[in-house]
């Protein structure tokens, strides 16, 4: 008897969920900030994938006798202090940041979501311990912590991803925990417990899909921070080593030319970083609007 009653209920729930996502997609297509952000991010993704075909020159090949040439038909963005084509370096430079930033954010999101789910679901001593540890990590600025770790163990792309990812985890854990606390009071969670479902099942199969909205928004917000943090670490010399065309590293290598009004080796990578950060933030803003409706 109960099975006869539950099947239509499940169907109705699934259908309602599909409808909600269709509605969200429609809303998304009518949200300019989300569309603009997505378009810019997509542009950089395409640049990263097709860099070898798009870039007019080898980004690593110095041509020291033609250094610091201003933008021209031959070099649209000019050349840098070693005579390398700035446009080619900006195009190739998208690869590093568009791999490292999403990976770091993903790591932080997965870790933070797991911590938040466990703390919000179990409450009591488990929550107290996890949240106090999280608070302790939140008290440390991410960049300062990252600098300390990188100075101790040495800089590499993998280390940067790990450090940024672990730095984001406590922030995401707090958001997820708050969402889980309200979800855990709802009937479907009580029903799962009454069915004697195991805790991981309840957390990851029942609750997680219902807190994905905040998790997605937090992911996109953190992605913008990750781009900025990685560029900052590269600028400070803790990222990908030279002669890689990394944007932050390029700014660090070339900024002294600004004194002599040679602006192009710095301006274009700086604009590239700014465009990605702004685009990701616009996307996060738009996504938040869509999910809140």
């Amino acid at each position: 008897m109960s099975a006869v009653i539950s099947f239509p209920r499940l169907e109705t729930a699934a259908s309602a969920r599909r409808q909600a996502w269709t509605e969200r997609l429609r809303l998304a297509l009518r949200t300019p900030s989300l569309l603009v952000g997505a378009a810019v991010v997509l542009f950089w993704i395409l640049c990263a994938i097709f860099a070898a075909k798009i870039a007019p020159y080898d980004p690593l090949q110095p041509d020291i006798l033609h250094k610091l040439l201003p933008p021209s038909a031959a070099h649209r963005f000019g050349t840098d202090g070693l005579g390398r084509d700035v446009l080619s370096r900006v195009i190739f430079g998208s690869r590093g940041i568009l791999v490292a930033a999403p990976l770091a954010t993903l790591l932080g999101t997965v870790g933070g979501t797991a911590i938040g789910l466990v703390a919000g679901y179990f409450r009591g001593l488990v929550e107290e311990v996890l949240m106090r540890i999280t608070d302790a990590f939140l008290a440390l600025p991410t960049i300062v912590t990252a600098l300390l770790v990188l100075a101790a163990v040495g800089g590499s792309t993998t280390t940067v991803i790990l450090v940024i990812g672990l730095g984001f985890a406590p922030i995401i854990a707090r958001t997820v925990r708050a969402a889980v606390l309200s979800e855990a009071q709802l009937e479907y969670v009580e029903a799962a417990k009454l069915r004697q479902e195991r805790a991981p099942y309840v957390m990851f199969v029942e609750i997680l899909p219902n807190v994905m909205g905040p998790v997605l928004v937090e992911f996109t917000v953190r992605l913008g921070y990750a781009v900025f943090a990685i560029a900052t670490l590269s600028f400070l010399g803790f990222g990908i080593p030279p002669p890689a065309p990394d944007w932050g590293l390029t700014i660090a290598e070339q900024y002294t030319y600004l004194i002599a009004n040679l602006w192009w080796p710095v301006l274009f990578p700086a604009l590239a970083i700014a465009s990605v950060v702004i685009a990701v933030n616009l996307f996060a803003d738009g996504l938040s609007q869509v999910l809140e409706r």
Partner: protein
Amino acid sequence: MDREAQRRLDEVRKGRTELENNAIDELIAGRVSRREFIRFATVLGFSMPALGVVLEACSTSSTPTTSGNIKKGGRLNVGHQTPAGAMDPILTNDLGRLTILGQCGEYLAWSDSNLHLRPVLATSWTPNSDGTEWTFKIRQNVKYNDGSGPMTVDDVVATFKRLADPTVTGNNALSNFKGVLSPTGVSKVDNQTVKFTLDAANGNFPYLVSSDNYNAIILPASYNGGWDQTFIGTGPFKLKAGGYVVNDHVSLDRNPTYWDPNNQPYLDGLDFKFYDSEPSAILAFQAGSLDVYTQFSVANGQGLLTDPNTTVIDIPTSAHRQVHLRVDQPPFNDKLVRQAMALAIDRPTIITGLWNGKAQLANDHPLFKMYPSSDTSIAQRAQDITKAKSLMAQAGKASGVDVTLYTEKVQEIPALAALLVSAGGQIGIRITLNLTDSGTYYDRYWLNSPMGITDYGHRGVPNTFLSAPLLSTGTWNAAHFANPTYDGYYADYVKAVDLSAQKAVSGKIEQLLLDETPMLIPYNYDFLTAVKKKVSGLETSGMGHMNFRLAGITS
């Protein structure tokens, strides 16, 4: 040569040793240039009048001097590198400190930008016939900048005994004196004379007691540390009361008791402001906060080189970047691979592109063309990619090798590293860069890396460059080069007192180092100082000294 000139030359010859007369003969015969003669004669202790007589007799003109229209008084703001440690003469090993030492302290002789020695606290010096003993006459009636004095021969003896003492912790002067001078070798002859009895013959010894050995300012015999409290010395400036704030600034006032009545400083004082970052200092200079900024790089100083309100003092030096190739580890344990790497480098292009021409070609050994003792007949190594690839194939490395290049993020060094990556890439030497701060590089990687770029400052003679990084027992031997033949050549070079003997050994050393290639030296770079147009009379040296004694503000 007319009869009067010949007569005066004969007069000069009478008072000279066999070694000095040999140098005069070399000049007359045209075997050494005027420049080489002047430089060598100053090492041997020719006085300036005697030198003038010889040059005049040989129909050459003396160096013209210039004087600006400088007014008395005023202070100058000087931008300078932050000292790397405690302000102590014996511990000093960096530009930040040595420039300050040179304002308050003085040396027995001054090594000028042409590598000529000028008497300062010594009035003259002479070697014995084999260069194992050098006798210095010490200037009298010289007072210290705190009013005490006069400086005595005992002060000079005590100063050099301390500098030659291997038991003094952190004694930087040992880089010059190790194996050359022991404390027992310094003795007082009389109240005006000091004798240095060397551990081994050394034809270039006067440079080691000159401003080239920046640790060697003369201090009172009673000195027992704490220089940063007193800034004591015989120099033209003294510490202003409360004028030293560590890592921030030093303010100096004119020394009213300065010993030379004819060359009293024009300036009332100097205010040195320390900078950790070159771009910050350049911005301060451009904004007018500084009147002088010492040693800037072409990479960062493009704006200064073209500024119409700035005079750039440009001095060719023996300062260089040394790329060590560790000979006892793959991939550079095969000399064919080392030679291939050397042949992949386009030196003239690097000098033009990286230095705007403000550097000179070097030939992968430290016997630079600027040294009179170098053998300039040895061919300059040039880029030859075909031959480099062939050497790689001969070494069985046609498929290429991988190596990590370690270095410091200082001035143009990262750019040079990037160019080496590109050069190596052309012949299959795949270089990965590891750039760190200077402290990490020198603590962790310098002497323990397969390949590295190290910054070497200027020296008036090549002895230190030939010993510390290349001798089997060398303390800076990053290449781990151990070659008994080379060690023998070095011993021969050091004990050679006359120029032709030095040149003969130099040729052998240059050929051996080109063949073995334990290091790459692509260039010597110029020492660049930016000075506002209103400042005149500043004399700089390749070592990084700044002589403000005759500097001032033009009216």
